[in-house]
Structures are given as C-alpha cells and as structure tokens.
C-alpha cells in the first residue's frame, strides 16, 4: 500500500512537469499545426537561464522569471526567424519539422560547447518535504504540482475569458477571417508561440529544481511531449493536463512495481491503447467541454 501511495504521489509530480513541458507544444501544434521539434529545447534554455541567475545570487523567484523569459524569448525568435517565413509554403508542416529539428540539434550542441557537459544544480531553493507515514513528497515536487494547476487554470481562463484568448482561437481556426475582422494575426501568433515556449521554460526550471540542469534536459522530453499532444487531442489544454498526469502515473507505477526500464514501454502502450480506441485523442469527446 505504501509503495502504491508513493508511486502515485511521485507520478503526480512528474506528470505536472510533463504537462508544463507539453502545454506550449499543445498550443503551437494544436492551434497552428506547426511541428516544433525545438520546443523542448526551451525547457533546457529556461532551466539554464534560471540556474545561471541563481548562481549569480538572484533570489529563486527572480531566477524562475529569468528562465521563463529566456525560453519565451527563444520561442519568439524561433517563430520570427524560422516559422513565420515558412507559413506561406504549401509544405509548411514538413518544412517546419525539418527546420526545427535542425534548430534543436544546433541549440543542444551550442549549449554543450558554451556551457559544458556537466549537470548543474540549484542550491535547494525549496527544501523540506511533506511526510505521511512512509510516503514522502518533497517541497520541490509539491511546488511543481501546485504551479502546474495554477498555470493551467490561468491558461484556461486566458483562452476562454479574454480577448487575447479569443483572438488566438480565431487565428487558429481561420487566420484569413481573423485578419478580416481586425485581429493582428501575426502578433497573436508570436505571442502564443512565446507564451507556449515560456511555459516550457517554466517546466524546465521545475525539472531543474527537482533533478538537474544540463544540455540534454530538453531532448529527454521531446518524444513524450509529442505523445502527450497527440494523445490529448489537438488544442485541448485541460485534456493535456489529464494525459500528462496519466503518463506520469504510468511511469511511476511501472517503476515501482516492475522496473524503471519498462517505464517508456508502459507509456507507449498506454498511448497506443488510447490512439487505437480514440484516434482523435482523449480530449475530443469526454473533455470536449473543456476545449479552449
């Protein structure tokens, strides 16, 4: 029983980070149909910027903000320099796929050369743990769960209750019509891209606080992020959160009851089962009302 409880608690925490990592990809891929293979590099850049700021003596809140902003800036630059020029292409999806794949490789190796291969660590900004019997939840993991819930609630409200959110939806559904009614489509797309990448940066910082920061921090999440986006259904933020937690729990339970080496296999089996039964993704039906 303790083992199960521990696995569930750990799975929730890891699911929260997965959700933040994949949220931006969900926005960009789900809403604009752009496959950004460099997306999870924003996680790495966010984590690197935050750990660098912290090592310079910045308080953790400032370091966190620096990480989010750095990732958002990289996202904005990616959109402006590499995505926007390709949007008019007939083969935009395949073009962006290869461009961003190349960009991901360049970013990772540039970071390896500039920053070195050694992992770096935050100096325990969130020490302590909550303990219930033999089940433990460290404060950094608890913070990840809380922050993910807050971020997703804000994101949901932003998209459903604000003009910006409606503009994003309109741009995603029909950019030409959106332009006709006066929505600055180009700017909206840039903002959505930057926000999505900033969220990945936040996920990267939380990952770094809980585990480590290195040049491979982002690439570890790439496949998983795409799995989450496809599994949750395009553009469905609430479903993305549910799927992230589901995969986090799957990983954790596989690690606790079998072997950690089976984690990815278990995740892929869940993914295949979902896609076989609901090809449109989990969010298309049951969670449809939560659609942004």
């Amino acid at each position, binding site marked *: 029983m303790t083992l199960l409880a521990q696995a569930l608690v750990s799975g929730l925490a890891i699911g929260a980070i997965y959700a933040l990592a994949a949220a931006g990809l969900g926005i960009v891929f789900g809403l604009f149909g752009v496959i950004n293979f460099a997306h999870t590099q924003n996680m790495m850049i966010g984590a690197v910027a935050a750990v660098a700021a912290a090592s310079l003596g910045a308080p953790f809140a400032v370091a966190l903000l620096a990480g989010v902003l750095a990732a958002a800036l990289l996202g904005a630059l990616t959109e402006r320099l590499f995505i926007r020029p390709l949007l008019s292409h007939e083969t935009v999806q395949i073009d962006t796929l290869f461009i961003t794949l190349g960009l991901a490789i360049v970013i990772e190796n540039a970071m390896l050369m500039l920053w070195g291969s*050694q992992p770096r660590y935050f100096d325990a900004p969130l020490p302590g743990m909550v303990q219930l019997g033999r089940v433990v939840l460290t404060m950094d993991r608890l913070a990840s769960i809380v922050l993910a819930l807050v971020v997703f609630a804000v994101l949901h409200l932003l998209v459903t209750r604000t003009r910006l959110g409606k503009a994003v939806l309109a741009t995603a559904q029909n950019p030409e019509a959106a332009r006709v009614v006066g929505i600055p489509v180009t700017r909206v797309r840039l903002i959505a891209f930057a926000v999505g990448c900033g969220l990945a940066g936040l996920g990267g910082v939380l990952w770094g606080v809980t585990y480590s920061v290195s040049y491979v921090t982002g690439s570890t999440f790439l496949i998983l992020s795409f799995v989450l986006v496809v599994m949750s259904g395009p553009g469905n933020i609430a479903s993305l959160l549910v799927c992230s937690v589901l995969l986090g729990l799957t990983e954790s339970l596989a690690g606790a009851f079998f072997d950690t*080496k089976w984690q990815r296999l278990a995740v892929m089996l869940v993914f295949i089962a979902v896609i076989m039964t609901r090809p449109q993704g989990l969010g298309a039906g049951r969670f449809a009302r939560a659609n942004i």
Partner: protein
Amino acid sequence: MHRIFRFAIAALAVAGGAALAQPVKDINIALVLPLSGPVMVNVDPAVKSIKMALEEVNAKGIMVGGQKYRFNVQWFDEECKPPVAINATRAALSQVQPLHMVWAGMCSSSAVATAAILRDSRKVVLNAVSGTSAFAGPKGDPYLFKIKEDFQWRSRDLARYLAKRGLKKGAIIAVNSDWGHESSKTFEKFAKEAGIDIVQTLSYDEHTEEFVPLLAQVRQANPDFIFEASQLLDEQVAFLRAYRQLGLKMQLAGESTWTEDVPEKAGWQLIDGMLTASAWVPSSDRPAVKAYLDKYRKAFGATPGFNGPPSYDMVYIAARAYEKAGSLDTEAVRKVIRNTTFDGMVYGSGKVKFDDHGQAEFPVSVTVFDAKRKLRVLAPGSE
C-alpha cells in the same frame, strides 16, 4: 690548417643549424570517442585529460630514433551510438594517413561494435574508457591495449568486502546498457560466490532522474545493501537524493564510476558511508596523482571523473612506447607496449603492465566516501 679549422667550424655550424631547424614530425593518432550526445558528460574528463597530457607531451616532444615528434590527434565523434561508432571508426581508419595509432574512448556498446573493424586494421589501439571486457581477452584484438581494470576484479573485491562486513542480502540497481548489464551480472556472480543473496535486480534507462519509485520498491525488499551501477553524474546525484529523501538506511555500494565528482555536485553529506571499488584512488599520496589532480582542478575548476586518469596515462604510455621502440613501426611499438611496465602513471598503483591479452593489470581498492570530503581507502589493492 687555420683555413681547414675555420671550414670545419662552419660545416659544424651548418650541420648543427640544420639539426636545430629540423622540423618536428607528426605521429598521427585517430581518437574515437563520444564528443557529443547525452553521454558526453561521462567522457568530458577524458577529453580534458587527454588535451592536458597532449599539451605536456607535445611541448616536450617525443624523441624517436633521434627525430623529434609530436602527436597529431584527429578527433572522431562516436556519440556513444554503435552505428555512429562504426562510421566514425571507418572514417578514422581511412582519413588519417599515415595512421600510426588509434586511441579509443568509446562507450562499451560502441567498443564491442567496432572491435572487429579495429582488429582487422592491425593498428595499435589504446582504450582507456571502455569498461567492458567483451572485446578483450584471448579471442580479442592482439593489437588492443585496455587501460582500465576488468569488471571482475572490482566486483570480486567489493563483494568479498561486503560479505566480510556481514551483509548477506543485497539489491542491484543498474543502468539499462551493455555496461550496466555486464556490471550487474558480474557483481551478482561474485556476490553469490561470497555467500550474499541478491534479493532484487532492477534497472533504469540512461538519464533517469526519478528514483523514488524504484527505491520505494527496494525499501519493500529490505536488503542489507544496494549495489548501484550507473555511469552518468545526473543519475548518480538523483539516486543519492532519492535515497536520502526516502530515509533509507541500508549500506550503499557503487561501481567504480562513483568518484569524487559526484559528491562535489550532490554534497558530501549525501554520499557519506557509500562504498566503491576501483583502481583509481584519488586520495593517494603518490606525486603523479597529486600533480595530475592539482593541474586538472586548476585548469577546469572541478575534480576529474573516473574516465580522466586512465585517459591521461594513455597519452604518456603512447609517447613512451614510441620513444622506447625508436621507431613508428606498428609491430615494434606493439611489442614495447606488451613487454614494458610503465612507471609513474596516475591510475592504479602508478605501474601499468599489460597481460597477454592486452588488459592492464591494476590493483583494486575498496574505498569509502566520508563526509570529511575524502574517498578513504578501506581495503587497499595488492599488486
């Protein structure tokens, strides 16, 4: 007579000048190791140590038969992926001309994948990184020399030590790689021989950083000790943190990959009491070890990981082999390496002597990390 004397002096001056101006020639080395990819962190100390040793050796020069040489090293990236390693090795063998020697710092999987290609090349190969013994031994490459202790020695000595301490039940946690499997199986074999019951064997993929579920499982089995075989620093730090977070008390023992760079990242309190067995003893008083560590720390601001010291020695072994052979001839150099005891080295006891199968013989010491920032020797290895 006077004119003859002046002529002789002039001739000597010309000859001497010519000798002084004689260009330093190259000994061409192909170096194949992971220079990018996720395992780079592991090989980084090797890269830095090789560069450090190259600078020293080339500054002094290598005298071969009266001619001064320097190592001209061309680097090939194998990314720790066997297919890439095969391509990189083929490229190294064809592009470096004339190729005098190969230095390999490959991952175990890559070393196994490229073993046949290197054997067929009939070039002297020095390998200071690959832990596996799968490509060495009687059926291995007669031109290959491995500057790393055999898995078996470490596992044997550590298992015996744990048994002597009265620890009877063990769990093994190892990375899911060729290296991890070999380490796990080897340790299990020697643990059983020492009367230890292995109650659990678990593994995880490279770069795993969430160890809480796995260790919660180990807690259920309640072994006397955990033997941990990981190669990457991020895994090791995450493992230690999870171990402490769960409040586990069983004895920790680790592969030789657990070196001082781990507590430098994780904190010495976290690793206090952990045992390891290795030929690398950084707390040694030997001047070569002190000089190497001082220079490395000064240059890079960190302590080298387990791949650093043997890689540093590799450059010196090569230089001395050429000097002693007095020739660049492969057979002559191979013979020298096989028959020489290389003194004053950093790794092991400072003496490197290869056996008939090209495996360097090293004494293995059982050491313990203590919170006083030291890797203390508990059971020194014998020659």
